[in-house]
């Protein structure tokens, strides 16, 4: 039972497609990187999978399991007076919901999550007082607590220091080891080559999907780079007959 199935998926804004007629199957338990040039529709794809964006055409089928999502620019109000511990504890939502009490067992898990991201001792700090890297680690700790089967990460290592990135990557590998499906949008192709067995390369359309070595070829990279970034304001309506035409 694959984790995610995309069928003829078109996602976009204001009728302009950001992702055009995509077909792909992400197997359960895989560790897949999503790569492509800027504006290729990678973030859009994740938003569609998690349900924040409705498809213009086509289907997304998710296996019945918990999905956790780390957006590229979290719309978190950093001036809101919430402590690190409280924000991380929100990851327990699936267990305690809106009214459940945070019990001793939960408190242990929170402590372990914070330790896993190296933020022990930060429990009472206000989220407004954290650096970018620390904030990202807090969000990872929350992801840990969510115990989701499918984890979607949108540029999780952009704009954070190398040590933090390495620590968080280790967590990702841990998830992979636990059999969870992880899909991550990344820009650093070295990390992709080193750490990710599978890759999905898109440039508003499918370019290649499969084992990383066979996807990240110079030919594919060139094809992706040639994709047009701007929307064509004079584009005609996309009809099934016209598909395949440039």
């Amino acid at each position: 039972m694959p984790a995610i199935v995309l069928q003829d998926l078109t996602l976009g804004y204001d009728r302009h497609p950001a992702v055009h007629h995509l077909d792909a199957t992400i197997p359960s338990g895989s560790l897949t990187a999503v790569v492509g040039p800027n504006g290729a529709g990678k973030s859009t794809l994740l938003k569609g999978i998690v349900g924040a964006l409705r498809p213009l055409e086509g289907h997304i089928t998710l296996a019945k399991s918990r999905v956790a999502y780390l957006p590229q620019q979290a719309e978190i109000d950093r001036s809101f007076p919430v402590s690190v511990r409280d924000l991380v504890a929100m990851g327990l939502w699936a267990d305690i919901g809106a009214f459940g009490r945070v019990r001793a067992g939960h408190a242990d898990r929170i402590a372990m999550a914070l330790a896993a991201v190296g933020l022990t001792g930060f429990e009472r700090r206000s989220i407004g007082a954290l650096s970018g890297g620390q904030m990202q680690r807090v969000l990872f700790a929350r992801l840990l607590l969510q115990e989701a089967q499918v984890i979607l990460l949108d540029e999780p290592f952009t704009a954070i220091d190398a040590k933090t990135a390495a620590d968080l990557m280790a967590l990702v590998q841990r998830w992979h080891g636990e059999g969870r499906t992880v899909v991550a949008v990344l820009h650093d192709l070295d990390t992709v080559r080193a750490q990710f067995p599978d890759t999905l390369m898109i440039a508003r359309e499918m370019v290649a999907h499969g084992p990383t070595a066979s996807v990240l070829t110079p030919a594919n990279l060139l094809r992706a780079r040639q994709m047009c970034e701007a929307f064509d304001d004079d584009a005609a309506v996309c009809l099934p007959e016209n598909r395949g035409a440039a």
Partner: protein
Amino acid sequence: MIDLIVTPFLDFAFMRRALLGCIAISIGATPIGVFLMLRRMSLTGDAMAHAILPGAAVGFLVSGLSLGAMTIGGLIAGMAVALLSGFVTRMTALKEDASMAAFYLISLAGGVLIISVNGNSVDLLHVLFGTVLALNDDALILLCSITTITWFALAVLFRPLVLECADPQFLASVSQLSAITHFGFLALVVLNLVAGFQALGTLMSVGLMILPAAAARFWATGIAGMISVAILVAVASSITGLLLSYHASLPTGPAIILVAGALYAASVIVGPQGSLMARYLPRPHLQS
């Protein structure tokens, strides 16, 4: 000293009732005010004071100068404005401040139209808005009920509400409660405001909701702390304002709000968190 502070309340029933009314609104409305301030919706109170006009007008048309009918009408109009603006904020590209402004203006215009077309010259809002010195039993019961409802609702909705303010994306991804929380909060705002208008008038109702919350910002770091400080400030302002009104013959509503304002000004200057003094006269820094 006792003469100054306690005797007025012992001697006069209206002073005791005014105090009870103020305490009810200090406890009930200030937590709402704290959330409004944190969500950058502090000007909602004034918008709501105008938005309820068509409801009051229809109530007047149906039942004459009946406070009950006008209050219910006002509640309905206020709810409609709040919920519609929340709906537009969630479903479209427009943000909360603009959608609230748009709807309250439409509502106000509708109210003025209804009144003008029906040609009566009673200033409805002037009649509807009460004063703290005239709290009868009905008004006190109304205020205390609203306070109870508010605390109950906040207790139930606290966690989703905090999340809805801090990280709405996350809440939407893990729960269906996002919409209920948002609209529930707006409903509480309208409830507290309209009940407050009817019992105490606009100035006191909005003033005690927002000023203590604004002052609390400079004293506490967590929400619970802010709410506690806000309640203290509101109660202190009420007592002091009432006593000033009694001893110095000042109008009561403005006296209470000006005391709250003074406490706010003091907080802006000398509060421990993020005030002028904290930012421009910092204490020596701690060891690393």
